């Protein structure tokens, strides 16, 4: 991780819904041209964290602490008016279901051009030309014809390319991608992931990738933050995380994915129980109830993120006992 020169740094972000810290003390940084993956199961707070970066928190959610620094600007402190200027230009987002994000009654060309005209005082013709170039960049064949089409005339993969065009046309430095390929078929997913890699490399865009798919993480991420019940359980460069997970949750999560060399129909490692709901959060580590390593200390004391060196940090009191987890998982 390029900690020395981060573009975006989320610093001790805490978000409250109904008195519970659904995002609790979350910190990470992303450097230009890098992909930071936020991984976790439903309800772990990964989407809320990313929505906070764009001022898109639902009304019930409130940021109670922390900063989101995009270079020298604290995004979390912006007013809605200021956010309107920042969104699209400094930071953009794409969502899981592209057809739900596009206006069905407007041509895709006008939707892309609009995104440009909001931030640049140019003529319609000029904005359309920009949009056409953008379609070329995201690999859409026959762009001139496509500009005049409506979303329903395009496939899911095409619509996601349109979304990426809208998100990137003003050259934002940060792109938040919330499960960008989950709704797509695998061969189309591969195309979109390749496109994202290319854009990162060509434009130096920093990507915050929200996903639950360890395969997608393995493909595209530089760094990974594993979230559990609103907290970061472990954060590490991607190779370190997969090779040597230092949090029981990560280790079990990785072990529960079927591998090439597994015996067919052998029992997969499972994580017993379910994720606690916010009103079940205790004083200690939130993974305690499902953790094979849990002790009394875990129940009462929240572990801090211990530094394991090389940018690898884990919030577990028992990092030295990880070998036991590997036995459980094997």
């Amino acid at each position, binding site marked *: 991780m390029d900690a020395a020169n981060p573009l975006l740094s989320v610093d001790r972000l805490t978000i409250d819904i109904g008195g519970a810290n659904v995002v609790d003390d979350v910190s990470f940084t992303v450097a230009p041209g890098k992909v930071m993956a936020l991984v976790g199961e439903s309800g772990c707070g990964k989407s809320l964290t990313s929505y906070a970066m764009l001022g898109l928190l639902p009304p019930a959610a409130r940021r109670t602490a922390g900063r989101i620094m995009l270079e020298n600007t604290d995004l979390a402190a912006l007013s809605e008016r200021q956010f309107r200027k920042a969104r699209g230009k400094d930071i953009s987002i794409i969502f899981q279901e592209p057809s739900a994000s596009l206006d069905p009654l407007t041509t895709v060309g006008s939707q892309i051009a609009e995104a440009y005209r909001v931030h640049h005082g140019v003529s319609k013709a000029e904005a359309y030309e920009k949009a056409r170039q953008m379609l070329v960049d995201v690999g859409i064949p026959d762009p001139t014809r496509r500009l005049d089409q409506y979303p329903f005339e395009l496939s899911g993969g095409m619509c996601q390319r349109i979304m990426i065009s809208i998100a990137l046309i003003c050259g934002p430095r940060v792109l938040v991608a919330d499960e960008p390929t989950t709704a797509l078929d695998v061969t189309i997913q591969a195309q979109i992931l390749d496109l994202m890699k290319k854009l990162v490399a060509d434009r130096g865009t920093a990507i915050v990738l929200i996903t639950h798919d360890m395969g997608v993480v393995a493909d595209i991420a530089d760094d990974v933050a594993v979230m559990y019940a609103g907290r970061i359980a472990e954060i590490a460069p991607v190779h370190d995380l997969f090779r040597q997970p230092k949090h029981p949750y990560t280790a079990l999560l990785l072990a529960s994915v079927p591998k090439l060399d597994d015996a067919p129909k052998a029992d997969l490692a499972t994580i017993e129980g*379910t994720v606690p709901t916010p009103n079940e959060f205790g004083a200690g580590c939130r993974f305690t109830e499902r953790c094979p390593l849990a002790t009394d200390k875990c129940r009462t004391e929240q572990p801090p993120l211990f530094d394991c060196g090389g940018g690898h940090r884990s919030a577990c009191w028992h990092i030295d006992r990880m070998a036991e987890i590997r036995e459980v998982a094997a």
Partner: protein
Amino acid sequence: MSEQQNVLEIRDVAVHFGGRGGLLGKAGPVVKAVNGVDLDIARGETVALVGESGCGKSTLSNTIVGLQAPISGSVRISGEEVVGADRRQLNDIRRKVQMIFQDPALSLDPRSTVGATIGEPLIVRGVAKGRALKERVATLLQQVGLRPEHADRYPHQFSGGQRQRVVIARALALEPDLLICDEPVSALDVSVRAQILNLLVALQKRTGVSYLFVSHDLGVVRHICDRVVVMYLGRFVEMADRDTFFANPKHPYTKALMSAVPEADPQVQRSKERLILGGELPSPANIPSGCAFHTRCPLATEICSKERPELTSRADGARVACHHA
């Protein structure tokens, strides 16, 4: 029924949609969703049906349970013909084949307790009532890893994984021979997926039920299946037993699928050979001539756009429909 008898036998099934009485009396396009498909599933066997959206796998599943009539061909479940069966016959056949879907929340009635949901097929079929029904429901709940007292709860009181267990319990209530699992773990969180896969394997060992496992996740397929069938635009393009299939995939589409599914290991994933398909799945209303895959195929030559390759057997037992594989 003899032990050797196949649970499912499909012969030359074709399912087409549309074509007549379209808007303003004009004939609409014919969507050839499934074409010339043959498939057998043996007792206790798990066959994976792999393909992308629009390839016809859901249409085929619906045809097997008699929800969709084919225009030609035969579908036999435990020896009994589904195609052309009347309502009463279909009713009998449907005890032997059940289906579970991707999203358990959409498969359960939110206003019924799970006990009532699981018991309903037993009541409808007159299998059990009263105390016996309650006991049977309790046993089913335990079989899927839930507790008997869960019978009084409603779906919203369960997590996604638990709801899928309820759906499985209901599907197993009538002790079917064949369970069609349509993406049964895709909507579930990763840690819960493993629990449901383990459950499906354990239930099969105990009851001998066969699975037709529809999925796009080759990691899951490799884990749970005995045989794999790949479908593209309504036709099977490759079928092989699990080890042959994964050790030596032959059809270029199969190879592309394997290359597209990201491995959960950055080292493997980033060093593997990539074969990224251009373009998109053509519309099933306008299937390309010859081999339907030739528009996206890296190996395509002239013959591919003219002649449709048949499924032919290879030395290792795999069957592949490709001129060049």
